[in-house]
Protein backbone atom coordinates (compact mmCIF):
# COMPACT_ATOMS: atom_id res chain seq x y z
CA UNK A 1 0.00 0.00 0.00
CA UNK A 2 1.45 3.35 -0.96
CA UNK A 3 1.64 6.29 1.39
CA UNK A 4 -1.06 8.28 -0.47
CA UNK A 5 -3.60 5.52 -0.14
CA UNK A 6 -2.70 5.07 3.49
CA UNK A 7 -3.14 8.79 4.17
CA UNK A 8 -6.52 8.76 2.43
CA UNK A 9 -7.70 5.93 4.65
CA UNK A 10 -6.57 7.88 7.72
CA UNK A 11 -8.32 10.98 6.39
CA UNK A 12 -11.58 9.09 5.75
CA UNK A 13 -11.70 7.67 9.24
CA UNK A 14 -10.71 11.01 10.74
CA UNK A 15 -13.61 12.69 8.92
CA UNK A 16 -16.00 10.32 10.64
CA UNK A 17 -14.65 10.88 14.15
CA UNK A 18 -13.16 14.39 14.24
CA UNK A 19 -16.23 15.90 15.91
CA UNK A 20 -15.74 13.49 18.83
CA UNK A 21 -12.23 14.73 19.57
CA UNK A 22 -10.36 11.84 18.00
CA UNK A 23 -6.95 12.88 16.68
CA UNK A 24 -5.43 11.99 13.36
CA UNK A 25 -2.30 10.76 15.15
CA UNK A 26 -4.33 8.21 17.10
CA UNK A 27 -5.87 6.79 13.94
CA UNK A 28 -2.57 6.74 12.09
CA UNK A 29 -0.76 4.83 14.83
CA UNK A 30 -3.40 2.15 15.11
CA UNK A 31 -3.77 1.75 11.38
CA UNK A 32 0.01 1.41 10.86
CA UNK A 33 0.17 -1.25 13.50
CA UNK A 34 -2.58 -3.37 11.96
CA UNK A 35 -1.61 -2.91 8.35
CA UNK A 36 2.16 -3.00 8.40
CA UNK A 37 3.09 -5.06 11.45
CA UNK A 38 0.23 -7.52 11.64
CA UNK A 39 -0.44 -7.49 7.88
CA UNK A 40 -4.19 -7.37 8.44
CA UNK A 41 -6.17 -6.92 5.18
CA UNK A 42 -7.14 -3.29 4.51
CA UNK A 43 -10.86 -3.73 4.91
CA UNK A 44 -10.47 -5.67 8.16
CA UNK A 45 -8.11 -3.05 9.55
CA UNK A 46 -10.48 -0.25 8.66
CA UNK A 47 -13.45 -1.94 10.25
CA UNK A 48 -11.50 -2.85 13.40
CA UNK A 49 -10.39 0.74 13.92
CA UNK A 50 -13.84 2.18 13.31
CA UNK A 51 -15.46 -0.30 15.70
CA UNK A 52 -12.72 0.28 18.28
CA UNK A 53 -13.14 4.06 18.18
CA UNK A 54 -16.90 3.72 18.35
CA UNK A 55 -16.59 1.67 21.51
CA UNK A 56 -13.95 3.87 23.13
CA UNK A 57 -15.90 7.06 22.55
CA UNK A 58 -19.28 5.45 23.09
CA UNK A 59 -20.74 6.50 19.75
CA UNK A 60 -23.92 4.82 18.51
CA UNK A 61 -23.58 3.36 15.02
CA UNK A 62 -26.30 5.52 13.50
CA UNK A 63 -24.58 8.72 14.63
CA UNK A 64 -21.49 8.07 12.53
CA UNK A 65 -21.21 9.79 9.22
CA UNK A 66 -19.34 7.60 6.79
CA UNK A 67 -16.66 9.22 4.66
CA UNK A 68 -17.54 10.36 1.16
CA UNK A 69 -17.34 7.62 -1.43
CA UNK A 70 -17.36 7.66 -5.21
CA UNK A 71 -20.01 5.75 -7.11
CA UNK A 72 -17.46 3.62 -8.95
CA UNK A 73 -16.16 2.26 -5.66
CA UNK A 74 -19.36 1.54 -3.74
CA UNK A 75 -19.75 -2.01 -2.51
CA UNK A 76 -22.83 -3.95 -1.42
CA UNK A 77 -23.74 -4.27 2.25
CA UNK A 78 -21.97 -1.04 3.20
CA UNK A 79 -23.23 2.29 4.20
CA UNK A 80 -21.62 5.36 2.76
CA UNK A 81 -22.04 9.02 1.96
CA UNK A 82 -22.15 10.30 -1.61
CA UNK A 83 -22.27 13.56 -3.46
CA UNK A 84 -24.31 12.94 -6.56
CA UNK A 85 -26.59 14.43 -9.15
CA UNK A 86 -30.09 13.10 -9.80
CA UNK A 87 -30.07 12.11 -13.46
CA UNK A 88 -33.42 10.50 -13.96
CA UNK A 89 -36.50 9.82 -11.87
CA UNK A 90 -38.59 6.77 -12.69
CA UNK A 91 -42.12 6.17 -11.69
CA UNK A 92 -42.08 3.94 -8.60
CA UNK A 93 -44.06 0.74 -9.09
CA UNK A 94 -44.73 0.17 -5.44
CA UNK A 95 -46.28 2.26 -2.67
CA UNK A 96 -43.38 1.41 -0.38
CA UNK A 97 -41.05 3.35 -2.68
CA UNK A 98 -41.21 7.12 -2.59
CA UNK A 99 -38.70 7.83 -5.35
CA UNK A 100 -36.43 5.83 -7.60
CA UNK A 101 -34.17 6.47 -10.55
CA UNK A 102 -30.54 7.16 -11.31
CA UNK A 103 -27.89 9.27 -9.61
CA UNK A 104 -24.39 9.86 -10.87
CA UNK A 105 -21.04 11.46 -10.09
CA UNK A 106 -17.81 11.92 -12.05
CA UNK A 107 -17.03 8.21 -11.69
CA UNK A 108 -20.29 6.53 -12.65
CA UNK A 109 -24.03 6.06 -12.37
CA UNK A 110 -26.14 3.96 -10.01
CA UNK A 111 -29.75 3.23 -9.26
CA UNK A 112 -31.25 4.62 -6.10
CA UNK A 113 -34.37 4.02 -4.06
CA UNK A 114 -35.90 6.28 -1.43
CA UNK A 115 -38.20 4.26 0.80
CA UNK A 116 -41.56 5.86 1.47
CA UNK A 117 -41.01 5.23 5.20
CA UNK A 118 -37.80 7.29 5.08
CA UNK A 119 -40.03 10.34 4.76
CA UNK A 120 -37.53 12.54 2.91
CA UNK A 121 -38.10 15.72 0.94
CA UNK A 122 -38.43 15.03 -2.74
CA UNK A 123 -35.39 14.97 -5.00
CA UNK A 124 -35.50 16.80 -8.29
CA UNK A 125 -33.98 15.79 -11.60
CA UNK A 126 -30.82 17.73 -12.44
CA UNK A 127 -30.09 18.86 -8.86
CA UNK A 128 -27.08 17.81 -6.79
CA UNK A 129 -27.31 16.41 -3.28
CA UNK A 130 -25.20 15.16 -0.43
CA UNK A 131 -26.51 11.70 0.50
CA UNK A 132 -25.33 10.83 3.99
CA UNK A 133 -25.56 7.41 5.57
CA UNK A 134 -27.10 5.59 2.65
CA UNK A 135 -26.94 1.82 2.28
CA UNK A 136 -25.55 -0.03 -0.72
CA UNK A 137 -27.50 -3.04 -1.76
CA UNK A 138 -27.11 -5.52 -4.59
CA UNK A 139 -29.76 -7.51 -6.39
CA UNK A 140 -29.21 -9.71 -9.44
CA UNK A 141 -25.81 -8.15 -9.92
CA UNK A 142 -27.14 -4.60 -9.95
CA UNK A 143 -26.09 -2.27 -7.18
CA UNK A 144 -28.36 0.38 -5.80
CA UNK A 145 -28.28 3.10 -3.17
CA UNK A 146 -31.02 2.86 -0.56
CA UNK A 147 -32.17 5.93 1.32
CA UNK A 148 -33.61 4.93 4.69
CA UNK A 149 -34.96 6.94 7.60
CA UNK A 150 -31.45 7.01 9.09
CA UNK A 151 -30.10 8.70 5.95
CA UNK A 152 -29.73 12.43 5.53
CA UNK A 153 -30.12 14.25 2.23
CA UNK A 154 -29.33 17.87 1.59
CA UNK A 155 -29.15 19.82 -1.61
CA UNK A 156 -25.69 21.20 -2.36
CA UNK A 157 -24.65 24.20 -4.35
CA UNK A 158 -22.10 22.37 -6.47
CA UNK A 159 -22.18 21.24 -10.06
CA UNK A 160 -21.27 17.59 -10.43
CA UNK A 161 -20.10 16.51 -13.86
CA UNK A 162 -21.63 13.10 -14.33
CA UNK A 163 -19.62 10.52 -16.19
CA UNK A 164 -21.73 9.74 -19.22
CA UNK A 165 -22.84 6.18 -19.26
CA UNK A 166 -25.69 6.50 -21.67
CA UNK A 167 -25.36 4.17 -24.56
CA UNK A 168 -26.92 4.86 -27.93
CA UNK A 169 -28.45 1.67 -29.12
CA UNK A 170 -30.35 0.32 -32.11
CA UNK A 171 -32.12 -3.01 -31.72
CA UNK A 172 -34.55 -5.18 -33.64
CA UNK A 173 -36.92 -7.45 -31.79
CA UNK A 174 -40.51 -8.45 -31.23
CA UNK A 175 -42.64 -6.39 -28.85
CA UNK A 176 -43.72 -9.26 -26.59
CA UNK A 177 -45.29 -7.33 -23.72
CA UNK A 178 -47.04 -4.05 -23.04
CA UNK A 179 -47.49 -3.34 -19.36
CA UNK A 180 -50.74 -2.31 -17.73
CA UNK A 181 -49.39 1.11 -16.74
CA UNK A 182 -49.34 2.08 -20.42
CA UNK A 183 -51.77 3.95 -22.63
CA UNK A 184 -53.55 7.22 -21.93
CA UNK A 185 -52.57 8.02 -18.36
CA UNK A 186 -53.31 10.79 -15.90
CA UNK A 187 -50.25 11.91 -14.02
CA UNK A 188 -49.86 14.14 -10.96
CA UNK A 189 -48.73 17.66 -11.86
CA UNK A 190 -46.42 17.76 -8.87
CA UNK A 191 -44.59 14.45 -9.04
CA UNK A 192 -45.46 12.83 -12.37
CA UNK A 193 -46.79 9.62 -10.87
CA UNK A 194 -49.82 8.03 -12.45
CA UNK A 195 -52.95 9.05 -10.64
CA UNK A 196 -55.97 6.86 -9.96
CA UNK A 197 -59.39 8.57 -9.69
CA UNK A 198 -57.75 11.98 -9.42
CA UNK A 199 -55.80 10.96 -6.34
CA UNK A 200 -52.01 10.84 -6.19
CA UNK A 201 -50.54 8.25 -3.83
CA UNK A 202 -48.32 10.97 -2.43
CA UNK A 203 -50.20 14.24 -2.90
CA UNK A 204 -53.86 13.26 -2.58
CA UNK A 205 -56.38 15.10 -4.75
CA UNK A 206 -54.32 16.90 -7.38
CA UNK A 207 -54.41 18.57 -10.76
CA UNK A 208 -53.42 16.13 -13.47
CA UNK A 209 -52.10 16.10 -17.00
CA UNK A 210 -52.66 13.46 -19.66
CA UNK A 211 -49.73 11.55 -21.10
CA UNK A 212 -49.59 8.85 -23.75
CA UNK A 213 -46.93 6.31 -22.89
CA UNK A 214 -46.00 2.68 -23.39
CA UNK A 215 -43.81 0.59 -21.13
CA UNK A 216 -43.05 -2.63 -22.89
CA UNK A 217 -40.56 -5.38 -23.56
CA UNK A 218 -38.67 -5.89 -26.81
CA UNK A 219 -37.31 -9.41 -27.20
CA UNK A 220 -34.91 -10.63 -29.89
CA UNK A 221 -34.90 -14.26 -28.76
CA UNK A 222 -31.58 -13.83 -26.96
CA UNK A 223 -32.00 -10.68 -24.87
CA UNK A 224 -34.79 -8.49 -23.60
CA UNK A 225 -34.99 -4.72 -23.42
CA UNK A 226 -37.36 -2.75 -21.19
CA UNK A 227 -38.70 0.08 -23.32
CA UNK A 228 -40.36 3.40 -22.79
CA UNK A 229 -42.16 4.84 -25.81
CA UNK A 230 -43.38 8.42 -25.57
CA UNK A 231 -46.21 10.12 -27.44
CA UNK A 232 -44.01 11.11 -30.38
CA UNK A 233 -42.79 7.56 -30.96
CA UNK A 234 -46.24 6.02 -30.46
CA UNK A 235 -47.73 8.48 -32.90
CA UNK A 236 -45.06 7.77 -35.53
CA UNK A 237 -45.87 4.04 -35.33
CA UNK A 238 -49.64 4.09 -35.02
CA UNK A 239 -50.79 7.54 -36.08
CA UNK A 240 -52.32 7.85 -32.63
CA UNK A 241 -51.10 10.85 -30.67
CA UNK A 242 -52.40 12.36 -27.47
CA UNK A 243 -55.25 14.10 -29.31
CA UNK A 244 -56.45 10.95 -31.06
CA UNK A 245 -56.08 8.91 -27.87
CA UNK A 246 -58.22 11.40 -25.94
CA UNK A 247 -60.86 11.33 -28.64
CA UNK A 248 -60.94 7.55 -28.62
CA UNK A 249 -61.25 7.49 -24.82
CA UNK A 250 -64.05 10.05 -24.91
CA UNK A 251 -65.97 8.15 -27.58
CA UNK A 252 -65.91 5.02 -25.44
CA UNK A 253 -66.05 6.81 -22.08
CA UNK A 254 -63.10 4.62 -21.15
CA UNK A 255 -59.36 5.27 -21.13
CA UNK A 256 -58.69 1.53 -21.15
CA UNK A 257 -59.74 1.43 -24.80
CA UNK A 258 -56.54 3.27 -25.73
CA UNK A 259 -54.38 0.58 -24.15
CA UNK A 260 -56.38 -2.17 -25.87
CA UNK A 261 -55.98 -0.44 -29.21
CA UNK A 262 -52.22 0.02 -28.72
CA UNK A 263 -51.84 -3.64 -27.77
CA UNK A 264 -53.78 -4.70 -30.84
CA UNK A 265 -51.60 -2.63 -33.15
CA UNK A 266 -48.19 -3.22 -31.62
CA UNK A 267 -48.00 -6.50 -29.69
CA UNK A 268 -46.19 -9.23 -31.57
CA UNK A 269 -44.78 -6.83 -34.14
CA UNK A 270 -41.10 -6.64 -35.03
CA UNK A 271 -39.76 -3.18 -34.31
CA UNK A 272 -36.48 -1.49 -35.03
CA UNK A 273 -35.90 1.03 -32.27
CA UNK A 274 -33.25 3.59 -31.52
CA UNK A 275 -32.70 5.07 -28.12
CA UNK A 276 -30.59 5.56 -25.07
CA UNK A 277 -30.03 2.68 -22.72
CA UNK A 278 -29.42 3.14 -19.02
CA UNK A 279 -28.97 -0.21 -17.42
CA UNK A 280 -31.69 -2.28 -19.00
CA UNK A 281 -34.10 0.60 -19.59
CA UNK A 282 -34.24 1.82 -23.18
CA UNK A 283 -35.74 5.26 -23.67
CA UNK A 284 -36.80 5.12 -27.30
CA UNK A 285 -36.21 8.18 -29.46
CA UNK A 286 -37.38 6.66 -32.75
CA UNK A 287 -39.03 3.45 -33.86
CA UNK A 288 -40.30 1.82 -37.03
CA UNK A 289 -41.90 -1.47 -38.00
CA UNK A 290 -39.09 -3.74 -39.09
CA UNK A 291 -39.67 -4.88 -42.67
CA UNK A 292 -36.56 -6.54 -44.07
CA UNK A 293 -36.34 -7.82 -47.65
CA UNK A 294 -37.48 -11.39 -47.02
CA UNK A 295 -35.81 -12.88 -50.09
CA UNK A 296 -32.41 -11.44 -49.12
CA UNK A 297 -32.82 -12.66 -45.55
CA UNK A 298 -33.71 -16.17 -46.75
CA UNK A 299 -30.61 -16.24 -48.93
CA UNK A 300 -28.47 -15.20 -45.97
CA UNK A 301 -29.98 -17.91 -43.77
CA UNK A 302 -29.46 -20.55 -46.49
CA UNK A 303 -25.78 -19.55 -46.66
CA UNK A 304 -25.57 -20.14 -42.92
CA UNK A 305 -26.81 -23.70 -43.47
CA UNK A 306 -23.89 -24.39 -45.79
CA UNK A 307 -21.31 -22.73 -43.57
Amino acid at each position, binding site marked *: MDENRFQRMVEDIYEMFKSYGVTKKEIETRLRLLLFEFKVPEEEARRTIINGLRKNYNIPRVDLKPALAKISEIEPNKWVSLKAKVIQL*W*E*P*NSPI*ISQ*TGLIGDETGIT*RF*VVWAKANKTRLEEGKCYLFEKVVIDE*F*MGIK*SVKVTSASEIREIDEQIEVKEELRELEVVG*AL*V*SIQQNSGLLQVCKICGRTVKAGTCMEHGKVETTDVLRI*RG*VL*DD*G*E*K*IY*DLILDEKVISSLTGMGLKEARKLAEEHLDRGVVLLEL*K*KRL*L*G*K*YLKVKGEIRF*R*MLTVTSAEF*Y*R*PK*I*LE*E*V*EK*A*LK*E*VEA
Partner: protein
Amino acid sequence: MIRTTKREVARRVFSKEFNASKFKVGGEGEKEAVYVLTPLGLRCNRLFIVGVLLEKDEVRPDSDMWRIRISDPTGSFLGFVSKFQPDALDSIADINPPEIVAVTAKAKLLQRDDRVLPLIRPENINISDFETRDYWIIETARATLRRIKAIEKGDDKLAIEKYHPNIEEYRKAVIEALMRLKEEQAILEEERLEEKKERKEEEEKDLGFKLDEEIIDLSDFEI
Protein backbone atom coordinates in the same frame (compact mmCIF):
# COMPACT_ATOMS: atom_id res chain seq x y z
CA MET B 1 -39.03 0.93 -12.43
CA ILE B 2 -37.24 -1.95 -10.79
CA ARG B 3 -37.85 -5.47 -11.92
CA THR B 4 -37.85 -7.72 -8.90
CA THR B 5 -37.51 -10.92 -10.88
CA LYS B 6 -35.63 -11.51 -14.08
CA ARG B 7 -37.92 -11.69 -17.09
CA GLU B 8 -37.42 -14.77 -19.22
CA VAL B 9 -36.48 -14.30 -22.87
CA ALA B 10 -39.07 -15.47 -25.42
CA ARG B 11 -37.15 -18.09 -27.44
CA ARG B 12 -37.62 -18.93 -31.12
CA VAL B 13 -38.11 -22.60 -31.88
CA PHE B 14 -39.96 -24.57 -34.55
CA SER B 15 -42.76 -26.88 -33.39
CA LYS B 16 -40.89 -29.96 -34.62
CA GLU B 17 -38.08 -29.37 -32.15
CA PHE B 18 -40.33 -28.16 -29.32
CA ASN B 19 -42.76 -31.07 -29.63
CA ALA B 20 -39.92 -33.60 -29.32
CA SER B 21 -39.07 -32.26 -25.84
CA LYS B 22 -39.30 -34.72 -22.97
CA PHE B 23 -37.32 -33.18 -20.13
CA LYS B 24 -37.41 -30.16 -17.86
CA VAL B 25 -34.39 -28.47 -16.32
CA GLY B 26 -34.01 -25.84 -13.60
CA GLY B 27 -36.51 -25.12 -10.86
CA GLU B 28 -33.89 -26.08 -8.26
CA GLY B 29 -33.85 -23.04 -6.03
CA GLU B 30 -36.98 -21.23 -4.95
CA LYS B 31 -36.41 -18.50 -7.49
CA GLU B 32 -35.07 -20.51 -10.41
CA ALA B 33 -37.45 -20.86 -13.33
CA VAL B 34 -38.36 -24.19 -14.92
CA TYR B 35 -37.23 -24.66 -18.52
CA VAL B 36 -38.26 -27.11 -21.19
CA LEU B 37 -35.12 -28.72 -22.59
CA THR B 38 -35.44 -29.35 -26.33
CA PRO B 39 -33.49 -32.03 -28.25
CA LEU B 40 -31.16 -29.34 -29.63
CA GLY B 41 -30.41 -28.04 -26.16
CA LEU B 42 -32.66 -24.97 -26.03
CA ARG B 43 -33.79 -24.16 -22.51
CA CYS B 44 -37.06 -22.33 -22.89
CA ASN B 45 -39.52 -20.93 -20.40
CA ARG B 46 -41.20 -18.50 -22.80
CA LEU B 47 -41.69 -18.61 -26.59
CA PHE B 48 -42.53 -16.12 -29.29
CA ILE B 49 -44.36 -17.71 -32.22
CA VAL B 50 -45.86 -16.35 -35.40
CA GLY B 51 -47.96 -18.92 -37.24
CA VAL B 52 -51.40 -19.88 -38.44
CA LEU B 53 -54.12 -20.40 -35.87
CA LEU B 54 -55.71 -23.57 -37.25
CA GLU B 55 -58.01 -24.69 -34.48
CA LYS B 56 -59.76 -23.07 -31.57
CA ASP B 57 -62.15 -25.22 -29.53
CA GLU B 58 -63.66 -24.73 -26.14
CA VAL B 59 -62.48 -27.61 -23.96
CA ARG B 60 -65.95 -28.06 -22.39
CA PRO B 61 -69.01 -25.95 -23.12
CA ASP B 62 -68.92 -22.69 -21.11
CA SER B 63 -65.58 -23.58 -19.53
CA ASP B 64 -63.94 -20.52 -21.10
CA MET B 65 -60.87 -22.67 -21.62
CA TRP B 66 -59.70 -22.93 -25.17
CA ARG B 67 -57.57 -25.52 -26.88
CA ILE B 68 -55.71 -24.01 -29.82
CA ARG B 69 -53.38 -25.25 -32.51
CA ILE B 70 -50.89 -22.97 -34.26
CA SER B 71 -48.95 -24.22 -37.23
CA ASP B 72 -45.48 -23.35 -38.50
CA PRO B 73 -43.60 -24.83 -41.51
CA THR B 74 -42.57 -27.92 -39.51
CA GLY B 75 -45.77 -28.89 -37.67
CA SER B 76 -47.96 -27.29 -35.04
CA PHE B 77 -47.99 -26.10 -31.44
CA LEU B 78 -50.71 -27.24 -29.07
CA GLY B 79 -51.88 -24.59 -26.65
CA PHE B 80 -54.40 -23.82 -23.93
CA VAL B 81 -55.88 -20.43 -23.05
CA SER B 82 -57.79 -19.96 -19.81
CA LYS B 83 -58.80 -17.29 -17.34
CA PHE B 84 -55.28 -17.33 -15.91
CA GLN B 85 -54.13 -15.53 -19.08
CA PRO B 86 -56.75 -12.74 -19.18
CA ASP B 87 -55.11 -10.81 -22.04
CA ALA B 88 -54.91 -13.87 -24.25
CA LEU B 89 -58.43 -14.92 -23.31
CA ASP B 90 -59.79 -11.50 -24.28
CA SER B 91 -58.06 -11.62 -27.67
CA ILE B 92 -58.87 -15.21 -28.56
CA ALA B 93 -62.60 -14.44 -28.32
CA ASP B 94 -62.30 -12.19 -31.37
CA ILE B 95 -59.93 -14.29 -33.48
CA ASN B 96 -61.20 -17.11 -35.63
CA PRO B 97 -59.17 -19.69 -37.54
CA PRO B 98 -57.58 -19.69 -39.97
CA GLU B 99 -55.70 -16.53 -39.07
CA ILE B 100 -52.05 -15.55 -38.79
CA VAL B 101 -51.28 -14.79 -35.17
CA ALA B 102 -48.30 -13.61 -33.14
CA VAL B 103 -48.16 -15.26 -29.73
CA THR B 104 -46.05 -14.79 -26.63
CA ALA B 105 -46.47 -17.89 -24.51
CA LYS B 106 -45.15 -19.88 -21.59
CA ALA B 107 -43.55 -23.19 -22.57
CA LYS B 108 -44.84 -26.17 -20.59
CA LEU B 109 -44.41 -29.91 -20.38
CA LEU B 110 -47.53 -31.67 -19.21
CA GLN B 111 -46.76 -34.93 -17.42
CA ARG B 112 -49.38 -37.65 -17.89
CA ASP B 113 -48.46 -41.05 -16.47
CA ASP B 114 -45.53 -42.13 -18.60
CA ARG B 115 -46.23 -39.58 -21.31
CA VAL B 116 -45.09 -35.97 -21.58
CA LEU B 117 -46.92 -33.45 -23.67
CA PRO B 118 -45.20 -30.22 -24.72
CA LEU B 119 -47.67 -27.35 -24.92
CA ILE B 120 -47.89 -23.58 -24.76
CA ARG B 121 -49.90 -21.23 -22.57
CA PRO B 122 -50.25 -17.94 -24.46
CA GLU B 123 -49.85 -14.71 -22.47
CA ASN B 124 -50.97 -12.61 -25.40
CA ILE B 125 -52.27 -13.35 -28.90
CA ASN B 126 -52.61 -10.85 -31.71
CA ILE B 127 -53.57 -10.94 -35.34
CA SER B 128 -50.40 -10.69 -37.38
CA ASP B 129 -49.48 -10.67 -41.07
CA PHE B 130 -47.54 -12.65 -43.69
CA GLU B 131 -44.46 -10.44 -43.56
CA THR B 132 -44.10 -10.92 -39.82
CA ARG B 133 -44.64 -14.67 -40.21
CA ASP B 134 -41.93 -14.82 -42.91
CA TYR B 135 -39.43 -12.99 -40.76
CA TRP B 136 -40.23 -15.24 -37.80
CA ILE B 137 -39.42 -18.30 -39.93
CA ILE B 138 -36.05 -16.81 -40.88
CA GLU B 139 -35.23 -15.83 -37.31
CA THR B 140 -36.24 -19.26 -36.01
CA ALA B 141 -34.30 -21.04 -38.76
CA ARG B 142 -31.18 -19.12 -37.76
CA ALA B 143 -31.65 -19.82 -34.05
CA THR B 144 -32.11 -23.53 -34.85
CA LEU B 145 -28.94 -23.56 -36.98
CA ARG B 146 -26.96 -22.04 -34.10
CA ARG B 147 -28.18 -24.83 -31.83
CA ILE B 148 -27.34 -27.49 -34.42
CA LYS B 149 -23.80 -26.13 -34.60
CA ALA B 150 -23.44 -26.19 -30.83
CA ILE B 151 -24.58 -29.82 -30.74
CA GLU B 152 -22.17 -30.72 -33.56
CA LYS B 153 -19.33 -29.20 -31.59
CA GLY B 154 -20.41 -31.27 -28.60
CA ASP B 155 -21.10 -28.10 -26.58
CA ASP B 156 -24.38 -29.18 -25.03
CA LYS B 157 -23.56 -32.33 -23.11
CA LEU B 158 -26.91 -32.60 -21.34
CA ALA B 159 -29.04 -32.42 -24.49
CA ILE B 160 -26.78 -34.90 -26.29
CA GLU B 161 -26.89 -37.33 -23.39
CA LYS B 162 -30.67 -37.07 -22.92
CA TYR B 163 -31.81 -37.05 -26.54
CA HIS B 164 -29.01 -38.22 -28.88
CA PRO B 165 -30.62 -35.83 -31.38
CA ASN B 166 -30.66 -36.70 -35.04
CA ILE B 167 -29.36 -33.35 -36.22
CA GLU B 168 -29.71 -34.14 -39.92
CA GLU B 169 -33.45 -34.40 -39.44
CA TYR B 170 -33.57 -30.90 -37.93
CA ARG B 171 -31.21 -29.45 -40.50
CA LYS B 172 -33.45 -30.84 -43.24
CA ALA B 173 -36.52 -29.26 -41.65
CA VAL B 174 -34.78 -25.88 -41.52
CA ILE B 175 -33.69 -26.09 -45.15
CA GLU B 176 -37.17 -27.11 -46.27
CA ALA B 177 -38.76 -24.21 -44.41
CA LEU B 178 -36.31 -21.74 -45.95
CA MET B 179 -36.63 -23.19 -49.46
CA ARG B 180 -40.42 -23.02 -49.32
CA LEU B 181 -40.22 -19.43 -48.19
CA LYS B 182 -37.83 -18.67 -51.02
CA GLU B 183 -40.17 -20.21 -53.59
CA GLU B 184 -43.13 -18.31 -52.20
CA GLN B 185 -41.13 -15.11 -52.37
CA ALA B 186 -40.11 -15.80 -55.96
CA ILE B 187 -43.75 -16.35 -56.93
CA LEU B 188 -44.79 -13.21 -55.07
CA GLU B 189 -42.10 -11.23 -56.82
CA GLU B 190 -43.24 -12.53 -60.25
CA GLU B 191 -46.81 -11.59 -59.42
CA ARG B 192 -45.72 -8.15 -58.34
CA LEU B 193 -43.79 -7.62 -61.59
CA GLU B 194 -46.69 -8.94 -63.64
CA GLU B 195 -49.09 -6.64 -61.88
CA LYS B 196 -46.79 -3.67 -62.35
CA LYS B 197 -46.48 -4.42 -66.07
CA GLU B 198 -50.23 -4.68 -66.43
CA ARG B 199 -50.75 -1.44 -64.56
CA LYS B 200 -48.24 0.31 -66.78
CA GLU B 201 -49.88 -0.95 -69.95
CA GLU B 202 -53.26 0.19 -68.66
CA GLU B 203 -51.90 3.62 -67.92
CA GLU B 204 -50.23 3.85 -71.30
CA LYS B 205 -53.50 2.97 -72.95
CA ASP B 206 -55.19 5.74 -71.00
CA LEU B 207 -52.48 8.25 -71.75
CA GLY B 208 -52.07 7.31 -75.37
CA PHE B 209 -48.25 7.16 -75.30
CA LYS B 210 -45.47 5.00 -73.90
CA LEU B 211 -44.35 5.95 -70.43
CA ASP B 212 -40.70 5.20 -71.18
CA GLU B 213 -40.66 8.03 -73.70
CA GLU B 214 -41.32 10.41 -70.87
CA ILE B 215 -37.69 10.19 -69.90
CA ILE B 216 -36.26 12.94 -72.04
CA ASP B 217 -32.80 14.43 -71.96
CA LEU B 218 -33.34 18.15 -71.56
CA SER B 219 -29.94 18.93 -73.07
CA ASP B 220 -31.41 17.93 -76.42
CA PHE B 221 -33.59 21.00 -76.27
CA GLU B 222 -32.87 24.66 -76.59
CA ILE B 223 -34.37 27.20 -74.28
